[in-house]
């Protein structure tokens, strides 16, 4: 369950930045091709944030759909998985979106 490690990173980065103030909300960006499950992130977040300035914070997750550019025909296409091919027949796809694992922003509790 690598999500726990990822959530520990999130808590470490945000708490280092925000402390000693308390955090009310964190917004993440998770690509649909990133092999990270938002549900598992939510599950781990409460555990990992307990006792930190993120304790009780709301987690907002924006999922980014996969997109790729075809090396053969140059067109962009939606990529729902890693095993797809371009309508032109080529499998030489360059991923351009969907692998994001970012912390976009956080909101502090009102003082």
């Amino acid at each position, binding site marked *: *369950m*690598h999500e*726990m*490690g*990822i959530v*520990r*990173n*999130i*808590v*470490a*980065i*945000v708490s280092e*930045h*925000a*402390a*000693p*103030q308390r955090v*009310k909300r964190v917004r*993440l960006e998770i690509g649909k091709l*990133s*092999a*990270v499950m938002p549900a598992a992130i939510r599950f781990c977040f409460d555990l990992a944030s307990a*006792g930190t300035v993120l304790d009780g914070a709301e987690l907002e997750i924006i999922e980014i759909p996969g997109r790729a550019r075809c090396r053969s025909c140059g067109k962009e296409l939606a990529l729902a*998985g*890693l*095993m797809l091919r371009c309508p032109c027949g080529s*499998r*030489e796809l360059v991923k351009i979106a969907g692998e994001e*694992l*970012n*912390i*976009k*922003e*956080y*909101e*502090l*509790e*009102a*003082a």
Partner: protein
Amino acid sequence: MCGTCGCSDDANAMITNLQTGEHAHLESEVRPSPAGVSGSHRHDGHDHSHDHAHDHDHGHDHGLDGSAAGRTGAHGATVELERAILQKNNELAERNRSWLRGREILALNLVSSPGSGKTTLLERTIRDLGGCVPFSVIEGDQQTANDAERIKSAGAPSVQINTGAGCHLEADMVMRGLRELKPAPGAVVMIENVGNLVCPALFDLGEAGKVVILSVTEGDDKPSKYPHMFSAAELMILNKIDLLPHVDFDVDKCIAHARETNPGISVVQVSARTGEGLADWYDWLATRRSQTSEAAFGI
């Protein structure tokens, strides 16, 4: 838990240097533990006590440095962070990569399911090539130093990293392993990741490339089931081919599955037990080593 003395808790990662017998607990920068000091000690029959508790008293003075405390009003302010979640791991991985590249060291991240024969393949490789190729091995497992012991017996220096509750190696663990091993310029560092086809794909260790090992006792559709790993690898080693007559594994289908997700993946078919096909793996290694020495000078 430390397998030798039982100190510390299960979640802590630990490193054992097989050459010196020393082991130490790894305190990760990205996995803050409430009370953890990295304590190193040698086991030679003496008593030792573990007192890892200490007060954390980090001063937080964020007045002018652009972080949160300097810019908040009465309302809950929103702070734009725009930070990669794995940034720390990625930065440490880049440091490892530069360190290795400058020394013309080829580092490979070996990934597979548990039981694919990674350690057996490494033992055989070290025995066959160890005379002319200086190998160093970083072994990752949740528990025990069994694999590092096997590598040491095969003739290569090794460190064992026990990830405890963790299911993959991270860049800081490899950095620590390199510090212990001090591989010589031109060496080959084999990083045997924890047996797992999911998480190791996400964590860059600073390696030159990933090699995925799949044994024919597994399903031939595994590349389709675990596409992240197979799309991240540059070489697939099909192991245990001596067992092909006894299993329903379709080699062509397996390679087709792998190329479906990664058209550029190279494939070698070997039996680490009988030695069949190993020459192809050794050729691949030799080519990769010469590329590494060329890359060191940016050629």
